[in-house]
């Protein structure tokens, strides 16, 4: 019997992903968890969901690992999302907000790192093979949104209407470039000064998640914006992007 590859993540990994910007588009190409399972000769249990943040990703893996025999599990993967998201459930149905209405970026980053460490501990204790990585960057999307919002008159409240403005090309002023650099460095220091910085092990691919610390976020690191994304409006990976993600992860896994 084949072993299980269990994956939890956000929209980049969601088997049922649909594009809000191209509702007419069929997005039923195989996603990287299914492609990776195929390469590894495993059955895929993909519990990724559009909009998910770290709490959804961690909770759904932790809940599943309570009831599945560890001997049946070939590999567990957490593909982490952006830090500010807030997950919760109502009547047993998970939902999420793009931005937690409570706390600040320092808190959201620290909370993320606790989830990463807790996931690592859980898998180590249960002796289950695992990997984790930052699929989309912890805070760059948030900084960019802050920046573009500040320079845009009459920014719409609705996120879907904001995206075309956010994804458009913007010629930044020197002041804006300096501000962005300063904020990024401030947030990076939060990662660097975290008590978990040196406690996350090699099973975290691309740790500590940013190129300035010799780490990376996988989508940013591997996807070509012109060929591997759905469109300029929708930056989710297309069929080619999903294949690239699966191949990259496969190489990382078999060579470690």
């Amino acid at each position: 019997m084949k072993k299980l590859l269990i994956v939890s993540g956000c929209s980049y990994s969601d088997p049922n992903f649909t594009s809000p910007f191209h509702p007419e588009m069929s997005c039923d190409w195989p996603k990287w968890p299914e492609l990776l399972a195929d390469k590894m000769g495993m059955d895929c249990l993909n519990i990724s969901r559009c909009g998910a943040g770290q709490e959804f990703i961690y909770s759904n893996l932790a809940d599943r690992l309570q009831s599945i025999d560890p001997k049946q599990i070939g590999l567990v993967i957490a593909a982490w999302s952006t830090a500010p998201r807030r997950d919760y459930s109502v009547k047993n149905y998970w939902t999420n907000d793009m931005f937690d209405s409570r706390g600040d970026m320092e808190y959201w980053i620290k909370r993320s790192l606790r989830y990463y460490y807790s996931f690592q501990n859980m898998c180590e204790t249960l002796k289950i093979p695992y990997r984790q990585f930052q699929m989309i960057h912890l805070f760059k999307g948030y900084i960019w949104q802050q920046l573009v919002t500040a320079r845009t008159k009459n920014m719409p409240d609705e996120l879907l209407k904001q995206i075309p403005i956010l994804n458009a090309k913007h010629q930044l002023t020197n002041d804006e470039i300096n501000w962005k650099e300063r904020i990024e460095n401030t947030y990076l220091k939060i990662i660097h000064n975290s008590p978990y910085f040196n406690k996350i092990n090699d099973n975290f691919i691309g740790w500590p998640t940013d190129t300035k610390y010799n780490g990376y976020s996988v989508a940013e690191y591997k996807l070509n914006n012109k060929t591997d994304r759905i469109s300029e409006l929708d930056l989710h990976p297309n069929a080619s992007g999903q294949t690239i993600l699966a191949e990259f992860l496969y190489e990382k896994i078999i060579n470690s």
Partner: protein
Amino acid sequence: MKKILLVSGCSWGDSNFTSTFHPEMACDWPKWPELLAKKLDMECLNLCRSGAGQEYIYGAISDKIQTLDSNKIGYTIAAWSTAPRRDFNIFSTWRNESKDSKGDINYWIQRSFRYQYAFQTLMEFKKIPYLQFQMISLHKAYLHELMTPYSSNLYSSKNHAKDIDLKKIQEVEPTLKSKFDKELQKILQTIKNSPYYKNFNDKFVGWPTDENIGGFDIGSKLLNEQHRISELDLHPNTKGQEVIAEFLYEKIINS
């Protein structure tokens, strides 16, 4: 050198606790973490904070443990709070709300179990001696608040965590008992159906935390009127703190 007793919890263990209901009262009696540390001949590192929920309790212990040599920790205790609380921090300072504005009681209880399981896993992985328990009930204060609109004249404060006196409620509103029972049964089902239900070990004192299903929370089990500050403020007084410390001491030396 003495080993460390590391404790995290809510107001019931907060060394700087002050009474909202009796602001004039000096509440500087020793709290159970300090009393227990003395009995165990350990140095107390008390992270308990008024208003804290499970995220703070777990987060504070997990963060602190990364900075300490595990061999220097004699014991770690998580004294869990009520489920609906929401913790977050702003400008590096922890804050909380008594009820999360998102989710429902089923979610808050499941979230609590995940923190409690993460704590168990962390301690097992680090090989640190530990205990955990529900200091105040996961859900009794929530049920109380749920019933309060029907029985507001029975209570002088909507915030205090007094157990619901069903007899009194029934005198005012006879259908309330069935409403209460229905809500309680739903909550007990949530606990019993949780994937974590059978995965807590015997270091969780009082698991599964409610007397209706064979567990208990420390506050309900150990404290009566003489152990509490007043009818208004149900936090443990000097005697209550001693009772809690004594109970935990017995648990630890007999485990």
